[in-house]
């Protein structure tokens, strides 16, 4: 679709909003249909809670979760858009917001966002993703720090570690000690996204600037540079310290072994807190904080979930979308939703001192605010924030092959990554 018709589309949707409000018929309630991948666990609980809130405010809530990967949710979304019956709201994130807004008509949220004074209180990276062509078409609901390190308390006690490693060298020294003590140092799984994520955490820890150039801007020089090579070297270490049975396993398979001290360290996004909490573990069972950062300064590898609003003709859906947007942008949304999932509220003015939040979340939220200030926020590759699916998938293919085949040298891995980017570009 050309830019001209996109503009026309936006103008059209603005005109629709400007048109006199279509009154709801007597007794009709505002309604939304929502599709997301959040079916169970802490994510399922959080969205159910949101649904209850929506109903309290007088709306009708209909959530159709598509369990599994985000892409499976997208398949349903695609089918519904082709059938001409998109959901009122769906989950979507990163550059996919821009890509999908071209395939279906989306709602222009500019007026409401302006009224709520929302833009001033969210990180600029998220605002940029939410208004890819100038107008707000999506709303961020929660943020996660990807570069987060969890250390099993029991394993840490066994090797006499009481604070988190600051640099990769410190991390590696602790891992060696754990290995000598018979502990499997790394508790990550071996799924594709997990493999990609380990690499991105390594690179972000080596240099956020190199990450921005290599991953977000796909700069050839950066991709072939020394920082990316160092990340491959670190990734090799991480793979050798993982469980031999990790290939194909979800990280949660190792949860019990991690908690009882058989496994040492987990590099995982902040959502693992929600998973731990939901599985009945206490914050005292693990240490949590930023993943190693070689220059010792704050850096934030950002993952965020958003809601995108699809145009519907029926007035009850339009009113429902407005109501949901209002709830999501409100200041008390973060404490309700993020407290359950372990994420960080996207509103930087949220008060995190309430009891629903953990110290881990408070620390991550502080880090986000500081990183925004210092311009040290990068977007996640493995969680489809930095690049559209086809480029991210091509890169992750290289990374996952590298993780599971010890014969590939870091130099060779780097070469393959640069080649994969060239092919996918």
């Amino acid at each position, binding site marked *: 679709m050309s830019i001209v018709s996109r503009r026309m589309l936006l103008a059209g949707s603005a005109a629709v909003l400007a048109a006199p409000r279509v009154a709801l018929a007597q007794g009709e309630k505002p309604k939304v249909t929502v599709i997301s991948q959040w079916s169970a666990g802490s994510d399922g609980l959080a969205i159910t809670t949101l649904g209850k809130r929506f109903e309290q405010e007088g709306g009708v809530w209909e959530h159709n979760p598509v369990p599994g*990967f985000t*892409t*499976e949710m*997208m*398949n349903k979304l*695609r089918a519904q*858009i*082709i059938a001409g019956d998109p959901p009122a709201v769906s989950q979507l994130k990163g550059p996919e917001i821009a*890509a*999908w807004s071209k*395939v279906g008509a989306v709602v222009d949220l500019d007026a409401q966002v302006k009224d709520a004074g929302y833009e001033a209180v969210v990180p600029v990276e998220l605002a940029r993703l939410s208004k890819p062509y100038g107008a707000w078409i999506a709303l961020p609901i929660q943020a996660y720090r990807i570069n987060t390190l969890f250390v099993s308390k029991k394993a840490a006690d066994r090797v006499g570690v009481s604070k988190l490693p600051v640099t990769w060298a410190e991390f590696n020294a602790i891992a060696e000690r754990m290995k000598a003590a018979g502990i499997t140092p790394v508790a990550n799984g*071996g*799924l*594709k996204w997990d*493999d990609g994520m380990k690499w991105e955490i390594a690179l972000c820890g080596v240099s956020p600037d190199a990450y921005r150039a290599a991953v977000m801007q796909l700069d050839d020089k950066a991709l072939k540079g020394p920082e990316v090579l160092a990340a491959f070297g670190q990734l090799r270490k991480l793979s050798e310290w993982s*469980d*031999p*049975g*990790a*290939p*194909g396993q979800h990280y949660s398979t190792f949860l019990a072994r991690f908690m009882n001290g058989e496994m040492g360290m987990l590099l995982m996004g902040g959502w693992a807190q929600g998973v731990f909490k939901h599985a009945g573990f206490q914050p005292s069972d693990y240490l949590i904080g930023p993943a190693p950062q070689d220059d010792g300064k704050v850096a934030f590898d950002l993952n965020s979930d958003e809601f995108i609003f699809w145009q519907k003709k029926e007035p009850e859906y339009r009113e429902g979308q407005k109501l949901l947007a209002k709830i999501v942008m409100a200041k008390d949304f973060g404490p309700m939703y993020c407290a359950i999932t372990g994420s960080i509220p996207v509103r930087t003015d949220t008060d995190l001192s309430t009891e629903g939040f953990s110290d881990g979340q408070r620390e991550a939220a502080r880090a986000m605010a500081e990183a925004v200030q210092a311009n040290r926020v990068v977007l996640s590759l493995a969680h489809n924030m930095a690049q*559209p*699916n*086809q480029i991210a*998938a*091509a890169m992750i*293919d*290289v990374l*996952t*092959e*590298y*993780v*599971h*085949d010890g014969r590939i040298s870091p130099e060779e891995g780097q070469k*393959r990554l640069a080649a*994969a980017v060239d*092919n996918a570009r």
Partner: protein
Amino acid sequence: MSWRDRWGRVLPHLAIWPPIVISCGYVLGFSAWTIWVSFTRSTLMPDYAWAGLRNYSSMLATNNWRIACVNLLIYGACFVVFAMTIGLLLAVLIDQRIRAENIYRAIFLYPLAVSFVVTGTVWGWLLNPSIGVQKLMHDLGWTSFRFEWLIDPNMAIYAVVIAGVWQAAGFAMALLLAGLRSVDVDLLKAAQIDGAGPVRTYLRVIFPAIGPVLIAVVVMLLQFAIKTYDLVAALTGGGPGLSSTLPTLVIYDFMFQRGELARGSAAAVMLLGSLAIVLVPYGLYRLWRRRAASAHA
């Protein structure tokens, strides 16, 4: 002609044509659509701007497709050879007029009743060194025992072969057993009178007599192998890394996970072409046999 006669003449057509039309519509219609899409610039959604052979060349250039094709050759060959061999062996053993034959037949045929996803998941547990057979052996005291095919990038595809053969050998057995039973008793008697032992009878008389059944089973197994998806998806997810991926997984990945409809379609068309490599010679073979048979008559 009475009303009843007329109805009797129409009824078979009514029963046969709608299913044929519907299935042809589906199979041919969607195949044609996929072929069309494979020449377009479609990404997230179908987009009918012409792209020529670009999708084919870019698919052929990907590492994923290359690995998948090599894996399909390995998997297809091993799967057919082992499933045939084991199936034939089981069929011959059961053919010895043993007692409780039905029970054995049910046992060996049972895996076919299990879905590939279940097979994949169960074998995934059995073959996982941390929880499966290797751990069992270690717990029993045989600590040097190694069976790590599932996590070894070089061997993972053979782990898939194990699960696939377990599932399909019983199917081959059932068809081959029916073939063995259909051999003319006079032929067996003649062989007996000529003094042929059991081994010779099988090799020289029975197997040649069931040649068409053997070929039919091979063809069926081959097309099973080519369209394998769920088994690998459940067993290894195509991993470790990409080492056990198959063309079907690559197609799904491109079409539905990466939002590259046109490239995924191009891959699907190439896979369809590989099915033709199996089915067209088989069709020619059958044609040739029919000609030969009518020439003899």
